[in-house]
């Protein structure tokens, strides 16, 4: 273990001496946290709405009022023909428009049946999906209301025979539906992961590329000592970044940390051991930094996309949802959100810890086996 001490001393000196890497390691993450958390937002509240009101009746007026009252929409224009609204969609000035056809009120009262049209700008999928949901919900609510009114006013039924279910709802853990509350913890995971995978895999490959690894290999340093000496600095750096990130998320975004910080760090340590193992594993496959970086990038992109960070796991088909259990990032994203936002304790994440243990063993053992000290 004395060797590990000397290796650590060397690694830290090298990292801190690299003037170009220092800002990348320490400043970039903070800037990213500031930029990403604001950029990575599906915070969809101010949907730009156009209404084409060809009916100009009291009913159409009521519908417009309903939309005006909704926090999700900003009513941009009410026009008489769809030509104008179509153009607005084409130029992305509108996210959606609602068309109320001529004779809408007449049909509604006489025929008990009328049609509206919702047109969304699906060039942006998430937005279009939500816009469609919100808009049809408002119209459907109005639908129930008007149906009841009609039933009563036509005296076909006494009011007390009509059945009604009131739905009340609450949004727990994030009452204001703030998107950064959701994203910031996830971005923390991303930052820590990137440092772990990229820096560690590239660091070892760099020694291969320069040739110093051969020198190391003829010394009495054992495989596991070398690997520990390589990985520990990045573990420390990653945990430091996590601490820095938590401070930023508290001070800048006021993200609550309901659970135990110690628990987060405990899990982060387990998680980093997994990812350093992956970085190490990658380095055993590659001979140049360029390759290492591309392979890391490739692996990362797939892991990130299937982690639930940007697109919720619930939005994936069932078979893919099962696949995500093989994705270590998924676990940390879940854990950090659970602990920070919901105050989950150790008993809630034992499964996650176990999975980390399994991943850590798999990746590190195969990396050590593959890392041949005999070049």
């Amino acid at each position, binding site marked *: 273990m004395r060797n590990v001490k000397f290796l650590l001393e060397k690694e830290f000196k090298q990292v801190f001496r690299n003037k170009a*890497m220092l800002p*990348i390691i320490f400043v970039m993450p903070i800037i*990213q946290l500031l930029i*990403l958390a604001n*950029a990575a937002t*599906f915070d969809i509240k101010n949907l730009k709405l156009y209404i084409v009101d060809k009916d100009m009746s009291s009913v159409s007026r009521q519908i417009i009022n309903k939309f005006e009252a909704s926090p999700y929409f900003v009513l941009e224009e009410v026009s008489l023909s769809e030509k104008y609204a179509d153009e607005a969609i084409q130029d992305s000035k509108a996210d959606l428009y609602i068309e109320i056809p001529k004779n809408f009120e007449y049909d*509604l009262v006489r025929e008990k*049946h009328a*049609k*509206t*049209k*919702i*047109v*969304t700008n699906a*060039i942006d*999928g*998430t937005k*279009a*999906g939500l816009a*469609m*949901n919100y808009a049809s919900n408002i119209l*459907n*609510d109005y*639908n*129930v209301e008007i149906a009841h009114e*009609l*039933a009563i006013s036509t005296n076909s039924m006494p009011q007390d025979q*009509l*059945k*009604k*279910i*009131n*739905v*009340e*709802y609450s*949004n*727990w*853990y*994030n*009452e204001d*539906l703030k*998107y950064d*509350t959701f994203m910031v913890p996830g971005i923390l995971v991303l930052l820590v992961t990137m440092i772990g995978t990229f820096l560690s895999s590239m660091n070892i490959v760099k020694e291969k590329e320069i040739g110093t690894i051969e020198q190391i290999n003829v010394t009495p340093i054992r495989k596991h000592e070398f690997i520990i000496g390589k990985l520990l600095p990045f573990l420390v750096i990653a945990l430091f970044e996590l601490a820095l990130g938590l401070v930023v998320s508290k001070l800048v975004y006021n993200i609550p940390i309901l659970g135990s910080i110690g628990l987060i760090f405990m899990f982060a340590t387990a998680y980093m051991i997994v990812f350093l193992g992956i970085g190490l594993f990658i380095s055993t*496959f590659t001979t140049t930094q*360029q*390759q290492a*970086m*591309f392979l890391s*990038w*490739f692996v990362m992109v797939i892991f990130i*996309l299937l982690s639930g960070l940007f697109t*919720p796991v*619930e*939005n994936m088909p*069932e078979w893919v*949802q099962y*696949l995500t259990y093989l994705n270590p990032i998924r676990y940390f994203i879940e*854990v950090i959100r659970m602990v920070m936002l*919901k105050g989950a304790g150790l008993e*809630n994440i034992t499964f996650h810890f176990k999975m980390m243990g399994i991943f850590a063993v798999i990746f590190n053992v195969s990396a050590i086996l593959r890392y041949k000290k005999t070049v």
Partner: protein
Amino acid sequence: MKKLLVFTKKEFYHIFRDKKTLLILFGMPIFQILIFGFAITNEINNANISIYDKSKDYQSQKLINKILSTNYFTLHSYLNSDSEIEDAFETGKVKQVIIIEPDFAEKLNKEGEANIHLVSDATDPNTGTTLINYTSSIIRIFANELNKGVIPDFVIENEIEMRYNKSLKGVYLFVPGLITVILMLVSAMMTSISLTREKEYGSMEILLASPMKPAIVIISKVIPYLLIAYTDALLILLMGKFIFGVPIVGSLPLLLAECALFVMLALSLGIFISTKAKTQQVALMVSLVGLMLPTILLSGFIFPVENMPIPLQVVASINPSRWFIIIVKDIMLKGAGLDILWQETLILLGFTLGFILLSIKNFKVRLS
């Protein structure tokens, strides 16, 4: 010209000898479009819910059956007390709890009115609200059925049109984004790294000291990446079209020309980075942090730019990818032509010229 050819060939040999990088260069776009196409949808499937049925009568049972018969939800558990609600959320699995008040059926019959409380895990606000929307519309339909014969099912019928992407397929939107990311990755990142590597190993000095013109040296180094990037873009377009049915409504030649323009832009950006970076590692990190993340996040690929705070929108505007994604989306999905997209195209041209000029300036400084 002959020299250029010889040098380009040499560069190709280098790339093709490196099987791993090659595999990644072509494997990555294929893998990514498959993931986007198959794995990421805009619809929620099998979200875990818990139900706290305080009434346990025939109506509540009917309602629960109706809710669970959809693909949206999977029953995680039945709850028996208020305290269990919090526990259910803390396991991280449960996304929504449906609470049905006591004497549900009786209240419906006697008072004609009953209450349901939906609690959602709003840590993810969109999933939270979407789930509430799904559940409330199921409950609304259920209530309508209770009134069957009394009032019509639908007095107002909503006709819904998803313009430019009828079935709201995620892959329609990912194809343009993916083309952008891959073109940027291969062109800008690969060139900056490979040029910096030559610098680091000192072989650049040798090339520059040779009678070759510096421009030819650089051009011969970037041509292979240009071709690879372009092949990747075509691959994505073809897979999008033939596997996932992503349309190309507008003009294909225009789309290809715009892609070529963007590749030029990315290459000149890559050259510019390499004139600045001293070591491969720096070039890598700058490309990765400075290029890839903005390309993915500040471009409208995944997150709409209009949702961002104004300062970020400004930053996004100096990100060439943002304009390119607009161009690709508009050509492919809206069928827009140059008459609509001339501004974006000019912006890309401007960036390209700018980076070329900056590179030339830096290059001279470095040599003198």
